[in-house]
């Protein structure tokens, strides 16, 4: 690998202080550090040895956890297309069709997002943050496969700008950038992305999501559908993800695989995931017991596998920067996110997909939750003061 090192060492002086491309140092650094972990050593006072982990590896772990969702999502885009068109398909043709629809969205998302990151790193003179490696993968997974590419680009740019860079970059942001992108699309281009209709990659073909369907039906009608358990109302279809929807979030099973990776590696907070599921179930039971609309006939555990709940729980709510930071805070944050997700889903027929809004709302409330948790710690300390 010495030749890569040689090339890098050759051009490095141009980017260092006094070099002709001095301004672009962080751009150079971003690329150099992809290949080589730098030769920085610990300062003369402090810990002289350090953990092998760095932010790049942590972010890559999240991306790997997202791959099952991405791969299944590609396949499912093909399956839904051919099913809607009434054509026969093989595993290969479905996957290929899905890949052709999906990969451009991923590419556009990374290209525009990283472009914004690069511009900011040059203008604001800070290192290019690894955070977008994850956001760039999350955004394509939460949009429908029919999303026009230019809308993806606009949403990504706005999300990186307003969701992150205006606050100072990764680590300083209040909102989850990927959810910000989804919110931009949701409110800005509602015609192309709404919670009650769903787009299959077939011209002019739309169908109701299971959530939209339930919201528009009476309790008795839904009860019959759940009892029959076919199509959109089949537990298997919902769990394995054989339903139309946003690219990456239809399959609860793939989300579970991702959750396992995040929890085993310690990168994602199990506290948030568990408490969010508990919150969702709690509200699910309340709905089942008290709601007289369509949702009243839905068993509570359906709520966990319908719509984006599983994906949001595993990948969106657990973003360490925008979530609560204290352990107690994480329990409260997760529970409320789950509880509100179902509440919004059921009570507000205009937004049957409540997970995004619930998590964004809890992102905003997370510092407040932490404030109270940390305050309790301060009070404990104060209570043993002698003067």
């Amino acid at each position: 690998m010495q030749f890569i090192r040689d090339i890098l060492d050759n051009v490095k002086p141009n980017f260092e202080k006094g070099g002709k491309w001095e301004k672009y140092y962080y751009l150079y650094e971003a690329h150099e550090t992809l290949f080589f972990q730098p030769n920085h050593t610990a300062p003369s006072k402090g810990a002289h040895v350090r953990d092998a982990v760095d932010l790049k590896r942590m972010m890559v772990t999240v991306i790997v956890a997202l791959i099952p969702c991405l791969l299944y999502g590609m396949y499912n885009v093909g399956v839904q297309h051919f099913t809607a068109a009434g054509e026969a398909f093989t595993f290969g043709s479905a996957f290929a069709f899905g890949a052709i629809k999906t990969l451009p969205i991923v590419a556009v998302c990374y290209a525009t997002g990283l472009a914004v990151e690069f511009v900011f790193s040059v203008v604001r003179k800070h290192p290019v943050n690894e955070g977008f490696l994850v956001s760039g993968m999350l955004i394509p997974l939460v949009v429908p496969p029919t999303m026009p590419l230019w809308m993806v680009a606009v949403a990504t740019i706005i999300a990186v700008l307003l969701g992150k860079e205006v606050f100072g970059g990764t680590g300083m942001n209040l909102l989850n950038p990927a959810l910000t992108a989804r919110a931009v699309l949701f409110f800005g281009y509602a015609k192309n992305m709404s919670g009650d209709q769903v787009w299959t990659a077939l011209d002019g073909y739309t169908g109701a999501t299971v959530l939209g369907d339930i919201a528009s039906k009476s309790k008795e009608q839904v009860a019959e559908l759940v009892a029959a358990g076919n199509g959109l109302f089949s537990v298997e279809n919902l769990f394995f993800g054989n339903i139309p929807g946003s690219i990456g979030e239809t399959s609860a099973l793939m989300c579970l695989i991702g959750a396992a990776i995040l929890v085993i590696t310690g990168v994602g907070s199990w506290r948030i995931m568990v408490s969010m599921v508990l919150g969702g179930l709690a509200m699910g039971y309340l709905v089942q017991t008290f709601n007289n609309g369509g949702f009243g006939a839905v068993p509570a555990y359906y709520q966990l596998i319908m719509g984006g709940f599983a994906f949001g729980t595993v990948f969106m709510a657990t973003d360490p920067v925008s979530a609560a930071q204290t352990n107690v805070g994480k329990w409260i944050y997760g529970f409320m996110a789950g509880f509100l997700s179902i509440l919004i889903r059921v009570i507000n027929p205009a937004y049957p997909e409540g997970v995004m809004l619930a998590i964004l709302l809890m992102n905003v409330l997370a510092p407040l939750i932490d404030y109270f948790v940390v305050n309790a710690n301060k009070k404990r300390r104060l209570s043993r003061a002698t003067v």
Partner: protein
Amino acid sequence: MSKSINLRKGFDIKVSGQAKPEVVELASETLAVKPTDFVGYGKPKMLVKEGDKVKAGTPLYYDKSLEAVKYTSPVSGEVVEVKRGAKRRLLEIKVLADKEVEYESFNKYSLPELSRLSEEEIKSQMANSGVWPHIIQRPYAVVANPAHTPKAIFVSGFDTAPLAPDFEVLFAGEEANFEAGMEVLKKLTSGKVHLNVNGQTPKVFAQAKGVEVNSVSGPHPAGNVGVQIHNIDPIGKGDLVWTVSPYGVVQIGKLFLEGKYDASRIVALTGSEVAEPKYYKTYNGASIDKLIDGKLSSKNVRIVSGNILSGEKVAKDSYVGFYDNQVTVIPEGDNYKFFGSFAPTSRLSFGRSLGLLSFLNRGKEHVLDSNINGEHRAFVQTGVMEQVLPMDIYPVYLLKAILAEDFEEMEALGIYEVAEEDFALCEFVDVSKHEVQSIIRRGIDLMLNS
């Protein structure tokens, strides 16, 4: 009431290069007192000049912010150099040692006489002889002020840091001195003297009487005295607690039993780059050059006075720190690692992010270099520092309060209870590679000077 504390948070860092229990005599030609070892003070005033003859226990300097405490020469000989750095900052006072050490004479007592001594007699003998700087005050972890009376004194009877020396070797035969030292300490506090041990009690503690023996168990940093205080009798605002290392207790005992400042000490030379790690009997402030001469197995190394988590990097021509009973030599990590952020690796890690495989082999002794394995970033990951800090403190909030120089927040979040070493593991595990211990000391300095 003696307490029994079981700590679960923390992380033991297993490194290769543990010293064999074998002690070798090592004469050092020059020795030095380094005013920089005594953090929190920075106005040293010299009492000798180059060329002066001194004895072991002759004051070399004092600090203008704490004039009562004298810093004395560890051996007899001639002051050969007063080394200053930028802005004439006093770095080292070097003494060329005599063949036979001559001692300044101090008052000598038998053990029963010690309990009849007055606090003033004890304090003045300690402050003038050179043993006083072993007494550290919390809050702030700085040399204590003899004018104060602490609510308790804590001695940590074990060391959980990487490659920590064995107390049985360090303090072999010092039972009587330790007993006398504890006897003296009892006179200095209005409360209790705590001795914290972790299950097996080294012989040296066997004779100590009338002290509170607590049992503390758990992974590092369970052996840190700050962590022990927090879990046994936490420091509140306005509280004052003193801490002394076992070596300090032995030194104090020796001063009163023998009437002289005998700065001899055993230092462990440890680390993966030491060919045969073992113990050396020398004096406080021994020369690093002499200690490592011909004993290293590689060239590009980092020499750390102290342990690798909270020690200080020293040059070959420097000297062992006042508070250190080990010197660790590890490889300098000033090299690039190809795909270092992505390739699977068995390098030691607390977490288990993808490709970090060290958790598969927990018992392995690692060779760790000084590379920080990454780049500086903003705080991103949450909840990890908490897993290695067995204190009821929110580390990231405290660090952010310090960075923001918010005094009230620092106080409310527990700055009085911490020292850098308690946060050493937080620095180790931090994915964003902050200089956590420096930040903590910056916070303490801010509080001290406010």
